[in-house]
């Protein structure tokens, strides 16, 4: 997993609430058995005017020129500015995979759907919750200034605007630690193998019907 410590990049504003994971990556692209290669189909139905197919090259597909990621000023964006309840709906981890593969390292929104929020951390993508008025302010500033960049300092838990204004965000200690060090959850959990075995033994005594039934 990619480490996340400090990041500075162009911010792109996606100004709509309740962006669902079907919108982030439509279902026809979920048929892949890989974790990579989803970036070209990120926001496929918003980005292109035709219907995308898996394994199709996106070169030459008609672009929706109004869509934010197709505008020249947002090329190379790596920070996505979004509205409330971002990532709602389907649990598909293909959504953070697609955002990551496209080049996003961070999504800033007033709120996230929980499964999406969890999935981001497993993929080195940082979801940041800021207050409504802070997000409003960033939307305003990004619209006013071409090439607007945000810096994210995970260690200090800060979003820093080009004028030097600092906005603090909160994050779970464990998640922060994993993200900063690029750690794999499974390895960490398996350090507690003895605890898991002990629980399992107790459980087997209490509810033996939950063991060995499915075969």
């Amino acid at each position, binding site marked *: 997993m990619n480490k996340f410590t400090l990041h500075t990049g162009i911010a792109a504003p996606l*100004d*709509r*609430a*309740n962006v*669902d994971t*079907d*919108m982030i990556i*439509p*279902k*026809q692209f*979920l*048929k*892949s*058995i*890989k*974790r990579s290669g989803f970036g070209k189909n990120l926001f496929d*139905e918003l980005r292109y005017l035709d*219907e995308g197919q*898996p394994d199709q090259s996106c070169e030459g597909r008609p672009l929706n020129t109004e869509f934010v990621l197709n505008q020249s000023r947002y090329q190379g964006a790596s920070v996505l500015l979004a*509205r*409330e*309840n971002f990532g*709602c*709906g*389907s*649990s*598909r*981890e293909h959504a*953070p995979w697609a955002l990551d593969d496209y080049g996003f390292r961070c999504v800033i929104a007033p*709120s996230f*759907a*929980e*499964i999406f929020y*969890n*999935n981001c951390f*497993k*993929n080195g993508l940082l979801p940041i919750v800021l207050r409504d008025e802070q997000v409003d302010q960033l939307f305003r500033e990004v619209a006013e200034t071409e090439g607007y960049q945000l810096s994210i300092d995970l260690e200090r838990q800060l979003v820093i605007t080009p004028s030097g204004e600092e906005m603090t965000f909160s994050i*779970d*200690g*464990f998640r922060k630690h994993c993200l900063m060090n690029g750690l794999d*959850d*499974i390895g960490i*959990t*398996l350090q*507690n193998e003895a*605890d*898991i075995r002990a*629980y*399992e033994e107790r*459980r087997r005594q*209490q*509810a*033996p*019907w*939950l*063991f*060995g*039934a*499915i*075969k």
Partner: protein
Amino acid sequence: MAGKTLYDKLFDSHLVRTNEDGSSLIYIDRQVLHEVTSPQAFEGLRLAGRKPWRVDANIATPDHNVPTTERSGGVDLIVDPVSKIQVKTLDANCDEFGILEFKMNDHRQGIVHVMAPEQGAILPGSTAVCGDSHTATLGALGALAHGIGTSEVEHVLATQCLITKKMQNMLVRVDGELGIGVTPKDVVLHVIGVIGTAGGTGYAIEFGGDVFRNMSMEGRMTVCNMAIEAGARVGLVAVDQTTIDYFEGRPFAPKGEHWDAAVAEWRGLTSDTDAEFDAVVEIHAEDIEPQVTWGTSPEMVVGVSGQVPNPDKEKDPVKVDGINRALKYMGLVADQKITDIKLDRIFIGSCTNSRIEDLRDAAKVVKGRKVAANIIQALVVPGSGLVKAQAEQEGLDKIFIEAGLEWREPGCSMCLAMNPDKLGNGEHCASTSNRNFEGRQGFGGRTHLVSPAMAAAAAVTGHFIDVRELI
């Protein structure tokens, strides 16, 4: 000290350890696997040289991609090459790791959230996960169940545990008696309309009150299924005699001595009378009429006697923008009557509404009637091979076919259109599924979420109509 909620009890009884930062490691009794969100998890295990912690905690079946037309030729005859690879990959992974799988043409195959309860694979008092957000369905059984991402699928395969944070508790209480023609689907759509699509974020929702006590297990599954459409990963209904009766005799349910011990444990799976909830929502059953979604989020819902909202009456600019966007996408105008919405296709199926009671409800409405001339296609897709067999034994298939609906093989089908069942650009569909997002049922497709009875009524009239006029 206040008593515990059902969610607290389930969480506490599965706690392996609490980490210093307040996150918890909880033990997972069951994982259900399907072809779309598992391949990368199995690949991850292989790359790390790991094995599943406990093979007997897993059960698998392909559902999202499988064709619902005649498929006796097997997986090799799946036309879409990408779907075929995914189904074959699930088969190969389950074979390699020794995980029980009901393959595509096994009579027990079906939509994960229909198959797993039907088999008794998920039991009251257990924890269950699946790489699918509609795992919330299983909370109807008195289990702590929620959807997870693929990295977590791999984590559970490898460790039998999940790193999680305890949720808050919300009680949604619906008292009173539902009117005729008002179904569990209408109840949950109404609830989502009240609390909003993010209203349940961070909460486990327990559904309590007369309406849920008097509801069948299948109805409870429909309700909990859509907790996630209100933002809650977990929906729950307390265990009662209805729950216990449901499990007796199911293939993987405990037997003999174990049955008695299990039932004794299950009877305690209710919220204590002095339990405190962080949020309580109270709704009167009499206020709920058959529901229809008009927009592109499940919260965009009104009663069938209502009309499409007018953005001029809304103050919040983000909401106005959302309404305008939805009206444009759906091809509707402000203040249009719901019953004036013409339909092109009908879909009866999905993990929300493809169980036998759903099919009976729909069959009752279409019996002796014909699908309206403007309907291009009306699909009935049972949730599992066993539901299909039961329906055929009751003659429901004949009623549907006679009325001009198509009777299909089990799978997720047009709920998310990963298989060939999908909407054309601009087409309106009365669908018993759970999501009306843009493009969900096909590029440019326009989904209206309704109950099976309302979908059936729309099929025979060609537009929305209050089903109570037909029954």
